[in-house]
């Protein structure tokens, strides 16, 4: 079994050196109308390159652009859609990070179906390793939206509308060469009864993924109660957060997996570094029970919740863990 190392999404857009504080400075200057949107884009580009460089140096196989251009996981995409207005701040799950809440005021329509393509193409052209685009899924978008458009009072039509807006994005990213596309659905773990709604949305979305593999990532909660049902979803890879329930590892080992897994065994939310040998031992036991020819090892969630030095240390830890597994290279 091949074990590939990847990032689970975001990466810090700031650090302690002046170069790594360029984006904060430029955004501040733009807010004060002292610079141009073009200089902000350039600063974002510089921080994307820094994120890619650090992932490469840490030894990852599949990189992300760190979602450096994303104001937050919800409003970045939702804010580009007709029918949506962006409103006040709200806490994002159990993090100390706040997102701007979308308000559905009318029928949701994709602006041009190419909202995220340029980000992917920029990252791809600045990376020697494959890049994985990361999108927030339709259920998580819907669960964070305030509804003022009566047809969306029910969850299902709202999720469907977001899925329809995401479909051309998926298609464009696959067409542009993305081999793996990550779809984040942390909301599923908090709203487990939404499972059928998400399932229907994924059945539609998966038709638009072309040759790309669709990786569904669930995190910020315990996936154990849903684990067997997750196996039934029309996705190619399942990304799982192991940090909320220490018993979940044994459950996965007991049941095995019909799908390749992306294993969030390294805590993306705390600075404490895991013992590489202990994680490698767990990993060996899990991989024996997974069908397929490749699995992924990644932090339990995006790394923007950690300071930059600790985020990089977590990525390097992934390499150390892989080196201590029994032949999973």
């Amino acid at each position, binding site marked *: 079994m091949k074990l590939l190392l990847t990032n689970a999404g975001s990466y*810090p*857009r*700031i*650090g*302690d050196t002046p170069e790594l504080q360029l984006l*904060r400075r430029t*955004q*501040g200057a733009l*807010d004060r109308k002292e610079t141009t949107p073009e200089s902000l884009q350039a600063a974002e580009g510089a921080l994307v390159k820094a994120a890619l460089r650090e992932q490469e140096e840490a030894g990852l196989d599949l990189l992300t652009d760190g979602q450096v251009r994303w*104001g*937050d996981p919800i409003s970045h995409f939702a804010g580009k859609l007709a029918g949506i207005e962006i*409103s*006040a*701040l*709200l*806490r994002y799950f*159990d993090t*100390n*990070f*706040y*997102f*701007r809440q979308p308000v559905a005021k009318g029928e949701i329509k994709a602006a041009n179906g190419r909202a995220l393509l340029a980000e992917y193409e920029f990252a791809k052209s600045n990376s020697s390793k494959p890049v994985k685009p990361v999108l927030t899924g339709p259920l998580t978008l819907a669960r964070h939206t305030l509804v003022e458009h009566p047809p969306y009072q029910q969850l299902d039509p709202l999720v469907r509308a977001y899925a329809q807006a995401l479909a051309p994005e998926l298609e464009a990213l696959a067409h542009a060469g993305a081999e793996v596309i990550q779809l984040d659905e942390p909301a599923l773990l908090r709203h487990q009864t939404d499972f059928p709604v998400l399932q229907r949305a994924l059945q539609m979305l998966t038709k638009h993924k072309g040759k790309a593999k669709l990786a569904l990532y669930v995190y910020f909660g315990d996936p154990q109660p849903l684990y067997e049902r997750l196996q039934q979803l029309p996705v190619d890879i399942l990304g799982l957060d192991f940090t909320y329930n220490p018993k979940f590892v044994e459950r996965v080992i007991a049941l095995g997996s019909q799908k390749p897994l992306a294993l969030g065994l390294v805590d993306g939310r*705390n*600075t*404490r570094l895991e013992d590489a040998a202990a994680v490698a031992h767990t990993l060996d036991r899990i991989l024996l029970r997974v069908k397929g020819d490749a699995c992924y090892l990644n932090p339990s969630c995006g790394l*923007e*919740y*950690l*300071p*930059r*030095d*600790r985020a990089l240390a977590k990525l390097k830890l992934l390499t150390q863990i892989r080196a201590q597994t029994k032949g999973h290279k």
Partner: protein
Amino acid sequence: MSRERLKELCLELPLFPVTSVGSFPKPDYLTQARADLQKGKITAAELRALEEKATAFWIEKQEELGVDVLVDGEQYRGDMVAYFAEVLPGFQEGGLVRSYGNRYYRKPIIVGAVEWTKPITVDWWRFAQERTDRPVKGMLTGPYTLMDWSFNEHYPDRKTTCLAMAQVVRKEVEALIEAGCKIVQIDEPAISTRVEELPFALEAMQQVTNGLPAYFVTHICYGAFEYVYPKVLELAVNNIDLDMSATAGRRLPLMQKDPFTKDISYGVVDSHSHLIEDVETVKQRVAQALTVLAKEQVWLDPDCGLKTRTVEEALGKLRVITEAAKAARAEHITQ
């Protein structure tokens, strides 16, 4: 209602007392001075003098505007957790982490047993209180938020961490009370983060305030309040401060169903918008509050600290609140 508690403490406040959540914007000279200190261009004493000047400015402005319960404006603080972590043994300074948009903070790391060794906020509280006859709130961060907004590399789990923080915060509350502080605000913006942890967050606050002679406020904001209500009413405080300007539509029905049994510091202006609300809008928000809440239990303030606004915006927002409070008093005292 906690008017009795206020009376016991010899605090006379009008109907609809106006207060603030805590922070005010720092003037440009202070931002510059903090950077200069980092570069070694000025001394800590020079920075302190400028922080005192800025604090005195905000005390004077709050009095001028007619604010009833003042805050020192936190001109000397960076972040609400890091400020305490910087002086408490057991914490280590962490790197920058984003909180939203272009806002970042240094998230501390707990690397050993956290201990209270000396008062942290008392000097500044005293400095502010000496400049006004109106009560100044003591401003602390609560044990659950100290735990949740730090990385933990020492304690075995979150509950143990939180209860350890409670012991530390209680000692600081005792020091404030000994100095003469009668209203202590213990902020718990993180409390609605994990509903399943609410029981030990309540236990921690109980350990902080139990038996102490003060009027206690806690500020909770931008969270999934609906998930912790009405259980959150069990917090061992007299007043819960909530962001309500954008959330009243969904929170007031909850308070209708399960009556709000404490005083409430009711946020009537958006702390994160450049727009200064007009007085009519704020008056309408107060009127909406009074459809569910009793007039004796309502205090008025912004949704959250105002440190992200400009000085002019913050003053403008405070002004509309005090004007709306005056109008509400005129209407309700004559009724």
